[in-house]
């Protein structure tokens, strides 16, 4: 899918999707070399560590120069990833990660900019930035940790909390339908849209790597396991049982019916949408070239 991917050093993907890079998993010591700290504040059973590892695995697999990787994060459980990764990192304000990342990427287009956000972070308080980053098709990789709840503040409902789901602010069951973040990104103009799960680790690594390699706005939704809040209120407080439930709920995109709406217990995973369209930062470069020659037409 891109020259960034060296096909020779990648093994066959278990997803069988030949549009995605196939990343060979790295050893824990290789992963650790990309972390400032392996000590996190995430709850026992939380899958954020798994998703973090998948991101590092993808970066290693694509052989990116760690000095040229920038991770811009929002606020919430997912935002803490910025302090743990040993790249240039920015822990921004709640919802603002994509807007900050837009400035970073436009100012230095040669950087690999990955934007780590939570579900509420990206689609509630940051919803406006989310749709506009997708519309511009700016070459960023948005990695959304979707645990369907606000974890850091203690389990309130978010825009991805499903109808009827319980949370500390929907104790009678939510009366709001949930966003499908992938379809939202697609409708807004994202040119690479994929979903993975904490359970399907290898697929998650591959879809993240595909997003990073893609030259345009890539949105990767990582379905996260939050046994402490979402699971305890709605599914199961047992992390292993939660992961097994993900295995049941996740359906390969090819087996998901055309026009079928995702629901809590059935959602498509893998590369969902992929198209090519002019990229924003490259377009800005063309404007610069035209303007420096005195052409404004």
């Amino acid at each position, binding site marked *: 899918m891109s020259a960034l991917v060296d096909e020779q050093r990648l093994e066959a993907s278990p997803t069988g999707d030949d549009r995605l890079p196939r990343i060979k998993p790295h050893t824990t010591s290789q992963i650790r070399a990309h972390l400032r700290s392996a000590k996190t504040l995430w709850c026992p059973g939380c899958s954020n560590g798994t998703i973090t590892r998948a991101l590092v695995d993808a970066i290693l697999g694509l052989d990116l120069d760690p000095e040229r990787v920038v991770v811009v994060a929002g606020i919430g459980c997912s935002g803490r990833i910025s*302090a743990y990764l040993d790249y240039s990192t920015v822990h921004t304000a709640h919802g603002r990660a994509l807007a900050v990342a837009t400035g970073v990427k436009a100012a230095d287009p040669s950087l690999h900019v990955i934007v780590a956000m939570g579900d509420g972070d990206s689609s509630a308080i940051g919803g406006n930035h989310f749709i506009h980053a997708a519309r511009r098709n700016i070459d960023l990789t948005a990695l959304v940790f979707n645990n369907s709840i606000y974890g850091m503040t203690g389990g309130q409902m978010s825009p991805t909390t499903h109808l009827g789901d319980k949370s500390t602010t929907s104790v009678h069951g939510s009366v709001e339908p949930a966003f499908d973040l992938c379809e939202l990104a697609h409708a807004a103009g994202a040119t690479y849209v994929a979903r993975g799960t904490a359970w399907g680790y290898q697929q998650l690594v591959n879809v993240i790597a595909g997003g990073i390699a893609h030259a345009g706005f890539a949105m990767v939704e990582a379905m996260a396991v939050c046994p402490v809040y979402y699971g305890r209120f709605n599914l199961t407080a047992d992390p292993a049982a939660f992961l097994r439930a993900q295995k049941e709920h996740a359906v390969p995109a090819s087996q998901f019916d055309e026009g079928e709406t995702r629901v809590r217990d059935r959602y498509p995973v893998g590369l969902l949408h992929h198209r090519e369209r002019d990229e924003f930062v490259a377009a800005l470069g063309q404007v610069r070239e035209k303007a420096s020659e005195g052409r404004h037409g």
Partner: protein
Amino acid sequence: MATVVNETTPAAGRKPVLLQGNEAVAEGAIAAGARFFAGYPITPSTEIAEVLSRRLPEVGGTFIQMEDEIASIAAVCGASLAGQKAFTATSGPGFSLMQEMIGFATMAQIPCVVVDVMRGGPSTGLPTEPAQGDVMQARWGTHGEHSVIALVPSSVEECYTLTIEAFNLSEQYRTPVILLSDALIGHMREAVVLPDPAALRIAERGMPDCDPAEYDTVTSTLDNILPRPPLGSPFRVHVTGLVYNRRSGTPDTSDPAAAADLGRYLREKIYHHRDAIVRVEEVEMDGAEVAIFAYGSVARSAMAVVREARAQGVRVGLVRPITLWPFPTAAVERMAEQVRTVIVPEMNIKQMSWEVQAAVKGKAKVVDYGRVDGKLITPDEIFELVKPEFYYHKWEER
């Protein structure tokens, strides 16, 4: 640490150009080395964005129209972190939206410039009319303890020179700097002799002269504020809005000593350098019995009053803060020792006059005068405030 200051006197032999205040801000920013602007259209600041959408690409820079003002200042923070001099421009409603990320820039010590072309408020208010109602929002708009630098231009020429000054200060003190223009100054056209670009002193962003491995062990001091390497450098910096350990940059929310150290440092890095930062213009203060304390567009009316009063032999002077924040306390204290009355006309109700009163400490009478109808305070209005202070002067004989 020496503060880079430009003389506002333009170089001799240069031809005047007709410029609008907002255009002068845009050109001043380019002269200061700004190569990134992100903004959202809002009256009366829009010309700044319009000019830059044409000019920035011409000089190799980047102009982005963002989805709102929150995104604008956020993108400015990102571009600055990636190594570019970056800024945005807005007016009251947009300035309110930007306060969150101005706080982030303050906390994370990100150099950037925010131009607020003030209009009547609150809310949508008087979009096309000037006001000075944002002076306290500039100081305290974002939450939490912090310090800020705010400059107030009073002419088109100052729109140019103070924009350069704003970038210099933001780079040297690694802090957001606010340029408080208003609808009158922004939309006014004047013939201006711009300084020779080659003669300008521009503060450039440096790199710390230590090994990346040692970066976590060196700490800025009040007299030596170290530059931060850009994102994507071997230093692999971490930038956060959380309270952090000032040496390592690592978030640390459990150590009260680290929080106190950072909190005091963020304030003192500005206030410790107050004498170098603060600029005040004093006009006809020699022997003045009454002083007018006025800033921005109102200072132009005050200047006319001082000239007219002096022509009549009445000893009135003007104290014009060019730096509004940090507040020019020393200059106001000096003024209070000298005059019996300080008149504070402003296009808001008492916002700066409270601050003047606090610095005057009862040593002189403070007369405040405010307008919030979007109309200028005229020289005649100020003159009427001056007259009662010279009860012995026979005005009718003139």
